[in-house]
């Protein structure tokens, strides 16, 4: 078993070999590059759904605005105060840093978990895009409570779109990534255009004088749709904070910030989250109110901005599903040695396509986003404890690397234990991660202290 894990880890190491060494000073990038990159990074097809869901969940206008303002602020602070400082000090990707801390075996487990989660996320993006294509063929969009496909037509469209996105990702990931950079400013403009053009339909006067009244009574009126849970300020705040949890608290954006000259570049994420996770969500909330609060992103985009809106939804889905499929393939490559890139991407795409046929992947998107962050968060907590707390307590760091452990058992135990702990916590799903994070940091520190008394070596 141990030798098999070693082989898998070796395969994975080869894939990430190019960034094994810390970034050298001559490779550091200016703040403007970070600002530009973040600005185009947070407007995806899922924004069409998330903002609309806040309306359907009966969020009031006050709770929405304050929740997004402070929730996004907390997200920016998490990047700036947690993720960026570790990245700037180590100049390593999360992959190599976790490998030092938790051992190559746990890195394989982390990668596979990541691959599965990426496939579900890409599936949600394809599903959202399928509602746009379904419009042209008069295919009924799934209902809010649908878990399984509601028609053969829906399956055909979701599958066709999944195959198309996968084929394009197989044919040329890099070219598509560069094309995605062209799409991102336009997609954001489409959100703004759709919302602005919907306002007269809702009765907003050209001088904006009654905007707040309309917002309170016709958009975020505090009434949840049938079967939808009522959400408030705390839910919105936590959602905005954790929707990129794997990236900031989970530290996967170390890959980006290792190129930063200073840790303060973490504050530049505000250029991404405030347009993408505040303005775009507000815009999609306005658009869904314009179609009578129906969760049908394709219809919503068409009614708000015509064919350009439909194109915006499709491109938003495609440009974000494309790198997600690529990352899923990269993560899967550890268990598929000697497979060419196309075969791995095609496999990830096939899994994603099947998932995309199930409307539950986007109808339960808010819960999925919460779970996604929750599952990967303990790894960020383990790295945080190892990087900051262990040296302050005079404890030895990087024992897994120094002693050649395949798996750092305390780290594996903390990961599994944290997931059990948060599962049992009698809290709303959105609020579970924070006590879970504290639990993971504390338990990893305690287990590391306990482990120091054990004789060195001899671990599996």
């Amino acid at each position: 078993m141990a030798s098999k894990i070693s082989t898998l880890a070796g395969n994975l190491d080869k894939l990430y070999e190019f960034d094994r060494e810390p970034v050298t000073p001559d490779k550091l990038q200016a703040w403007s590059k970070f600002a530009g990159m973040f600005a185009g990074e947070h407007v995806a097809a899922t924004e069409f759904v998330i903002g609309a869901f806040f309306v359907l969940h009966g969020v009031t206008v006050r709770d929405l605005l304050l929740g997004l303002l402070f929730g996004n602020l907390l997200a920016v602070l998490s990047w700036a105060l947690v993720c960026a400082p570790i990245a700037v000090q180590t100049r390593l990707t999360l992959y190599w840093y976790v490998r030092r801390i938790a051992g190559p075996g746990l890195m394989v487990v982390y990668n596979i978990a990541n691959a599965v989660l990426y496939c579900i996320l890409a599936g949600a993006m394809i599903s959202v895009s399928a509602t746009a294509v379904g419009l042209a063929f008069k295919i009924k969009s799934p209902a809010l409570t649908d878990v399984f496909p509601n028609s053969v037509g829906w399956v055909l469209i979701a599958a066709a779109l999944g195959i198309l996105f996968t084929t394009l990702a197989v044919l040329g990931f890099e070219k598509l990534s560069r094309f995605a950079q062209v799409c991102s400013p336009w997609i954001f403009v489409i959100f703004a255009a759709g919302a602005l053009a919907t306002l007269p339909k809702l009765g907003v006067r050209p001088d904006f004088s009654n905007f707040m009244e309309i917002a309170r009574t016709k958009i975020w009126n505090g009434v949840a749709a049938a079967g939808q849970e009522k959400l408030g300020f705390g839910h919105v705040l936590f959602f905005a904070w954790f929707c990129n949890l794997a990236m900031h608290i989970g530290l996967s954006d170390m890959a980006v910030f290792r190129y930063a000259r200073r840790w303060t570049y973490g504050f530049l994420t505000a250029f991404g989250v405030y347009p993408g996770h505040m303005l775009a969500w507000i815009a999609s909330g306005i658009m869904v109110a314009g179609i009578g609060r129906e969760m049908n992103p394709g219809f919503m985009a068409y009614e708000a901005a015509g064919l350009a809106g439909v194109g915006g939804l499709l491109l938003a889905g495609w440009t974000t599903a494309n790198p997600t499929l690529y990352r899923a393939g990269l993560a899967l490559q550890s268990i598929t040695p000697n497979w060419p890139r196309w075969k791995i991407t095609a496999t990830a795409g096939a899994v994603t396509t099947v998932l995309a046929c199930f409307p539950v992947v986007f109808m339960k998107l808010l819960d999925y986003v919460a779970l996604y962050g929750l599952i990967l968060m303990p790894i960020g907590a383990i790295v945080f404890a190892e990087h900051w707390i262990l040296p302050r307590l005079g404890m030895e760091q990087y024992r897994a690397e120094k002693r050649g452990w395949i798996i750092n058992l305390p780290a594996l135990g903390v990961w599994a234990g944290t997931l059990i702990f948060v599962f049992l916590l009698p809290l709303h799903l959105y609020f579970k991660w924070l006590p879970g994070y504290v639990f993971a940091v504390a338990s990893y520190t305690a287990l590391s202290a306990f482990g120091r008394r054990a004789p060195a070596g001899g671990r599996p």
Partner: protein
Amino acid sequence: MRRRVFAVLSIVSLALCLAFPILRFLGRISVEGFRSGLLIASVAWFVFAPLWSIKPKKN
């Protein structure tokens, strides 16, 4: 020089993408006018923007 022209044209296209919804909001154009204008400006963006913003990959 040519890249600069394409850059200006693409920025104008994007500005038009914003101008049409503003005109619609102010009630100066119809819904159909807004949708057609936005579509044309969008197509223009995708014609001009790649011509200056996507740089050929250096080996």
